[in-house]
């Protein structure tokens, strides 16, 4: 409504002060209508402004989605010589394949582990950093600094730690009789993958949790100190519920991260390595489509993934957000 003031309006000022009587509500309605007309000289103009954004969404999101859905019903020739309509058989092939099932299971376990560990470790560090009084800023900067390192670089550093020949973690573990073979042993690879994925995500969660903690009013904490003796109980009953909006936001972000953004880490770890390595569903979409040239099967997988994400999103907003306290 701020725009109305720039428009010369006899009586507008009076009506706002309540002198307009019955005409007042009518006038504001007219003013609102006029405002729309005033802002854009042509009705096409707003759509023109929206166009670049819409174009980006359409070209990079809707169009590929439609492509994926349509090609999931076809069997594409690997060399590009035409395609055959096969109905739902791409889907049935994928769903009943035991390989796909085990990858789906791994993806689920991996996502739960990465989300849980990176959230809880980020929260733990934030709570501890929040209590530090001496040298607090140095401490916080050191923890946040990891986030400033470019993702591929930090991924690479993570790889180096688990390197077969020079990795310090591998060497250390060998003293305990654990001869890690990242890239060869399924569980060793899964372990390294999870650790690196968690490590990369902790600073992000840390920053959000720390700022969330600092938004908890000091007096509320003090009131809780008087009301409740146990620091642990105070944390669970007062601090954590007030952090819930932050935690919910981070939950969404972390699930997405574990499902999709860990692609780079997985690629570095399993690329050029002998077969039986754990991968996530997204990596399998890529491997089947671009390495195996099975466009149809890959498309079917990505459609399944799309549905999973869709369901997950609805679940998160419907059931979790409802229990979150927004101040």
């Amino acid at each position, binding site marked *: 409504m701020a725009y109305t003031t720039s428009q010369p309006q006899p009586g507008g000022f009076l009506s706002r002060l309540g002198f307009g009587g019955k005409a007042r509500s009518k006038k504001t309605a007219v003013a609102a209508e006029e405002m729309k007309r005033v802002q854009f000289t042509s009705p096409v103009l707003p759509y023109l402004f929206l166009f670049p954004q819409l174009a980006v969404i359409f070209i990079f999101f809707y169009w590929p989605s439609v492509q994926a859905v349509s090609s999931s019903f076809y069997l594409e020739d690997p060399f590009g010589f035409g395609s055959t309509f096969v109905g739902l058989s791409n889907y049935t092939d994928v769903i009943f394949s035991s390989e796909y099932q085990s990858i789906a299971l791994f993806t689920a376990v991996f996502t739960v582990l990465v989300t849980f560990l990176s959230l809880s470790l980020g929260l733990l560090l934030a709570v501890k950093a929040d209590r530090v009084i001496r040298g607090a800023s140095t401490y916080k900067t050191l923890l946040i600094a990891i986030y400033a390192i470019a993702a591929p670089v930090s991924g690479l550093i993570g790889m180096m730690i688990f390197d077969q020949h020079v990795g310090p973690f591998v060497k250390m573990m060998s003293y305990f009789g654990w001869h890690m073979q990242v890239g060869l042993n399924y569980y060793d690879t899964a372990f390294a993958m999870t650790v690196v994925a968690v490590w990369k995500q902790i600073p992000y969660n840390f920053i959000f949790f720390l700022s969330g903690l600092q938004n908890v*009013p000091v*007096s*509320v904490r*003090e*009131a*809780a*100190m*008087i*009301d*409740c*003796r*146990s620091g642990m*109980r105070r944390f669970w*009953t*007062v601090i954590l*519920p*007030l952090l*819930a909006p932050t935690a919910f936001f981070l939950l969404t972000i972390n699930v997405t991260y574990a499902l999709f953004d860990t692609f780079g880490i997985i690629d570095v770890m399993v690329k050029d390595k002998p077969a039986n390595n754990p991968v996530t569903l997204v990596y399998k979409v890529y491997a089947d489509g671009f390495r195996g040239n099975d466009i149809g099967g890959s498309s079917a997988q990505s459609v399944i993934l799309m549905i999973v994400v869709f369901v997950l999103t609805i679940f998160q907003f419907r059931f979790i957000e409802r229990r979150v*306290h927004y*101040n």
Partner: protein
Amino acid sequence: MAAIDISSVGKIYNGGVRAVSDINLDIKDGEFIVLVGPSGCGKSTLLRMVAGLEAISEGTVKIGDRVVNQVEPADRDIAMVFQNYALYPHMTVRQNLEYGLKNRKTPKAEIDARVNEAARMLEITQYLDRKPRALSGGQRQRVAMGRAIVRKPAAFLFDEPLSNLDAKLRVSMRGEIKRLQRRIGTTSIYVTHDQLEAMTLADRLVVLNGGQIEQVGSPLDVYHTPASTFVASFIGSPAMNLVKAELQSDRLAIGSSQISLNGYAPTSGAVTVGLRAEDLRVVSSAEGMPFTVEYVEELGSQRLAHGLVGDQAVTIALSGEAEITNDMRIAIDPSKLHFFDAETGKRLEASVPAKAPAAVAEPVA
């Protein structure tokens, strides 16, 4: 319920800043103590040391028979009401009230009884299932008080609880706090910077300045016999006029005007003299001090004339209908003069043997 004994308490922050020094205060069981002073005088720090939210650097605090210096806030058996209410925003009013009791393993039936009683007392029963954000400021402050009451603690600590409320609500809540405290009889320490709140609530006032106690006494004591120029200028509205003057045997010289003291002179030489605005009266005779009016504040029930005696600012309180001319003469009963040391600002007792008659003037809003 318990007495609170504060002895030689001081607070030194990291870096050596001294916020509070050498506070000695014996608070009787059931007493309502108000700590008052300008911001930065250490009143909140003192309260927070009693609460256990600040570590005590020096001295000891005893609640009942127990030295609580090392005791956790939750174990000190105190309840605190904060300036910005500090309600738990994610809990309903009922949960807010229950929280402290639940953590102390109070039986459910007992919790319900206490919560219902407190809610009835504070007239918040219909809001018990609401979240704090759905309440107005005044209602939130009631809930905050309810949270303190249900605990039945040894002492209530109030940290400027009314500062966030509008003026009208502040007056009514003030009365309510006083009434509740009388009824429950719990020892209370109340921090405020508002001298009017301090005057109306306190059994005993503690005026703090620069981390030290300036004066302790009943509100009327402090009002009628301020111990220093600081207290004199802080307690009472309008503030007491403080003017430089010279004592010459039995006469007081303020600028070029002279007042005959009839034997009230406590000393001789330079002094600071305090004159309450309401003790000054307009006289027609040439006896009085010449007073040049600069401007007038209309308060309805009275008019405050601000002006000069000689070159020193003086305010006089006149009745609502009093006539004000540019040049008037004012006089004061010598028994109503307050003398302070010109150097230290400490009170000099007037030398009259008979006690000064109790002044009829009540503190004026």
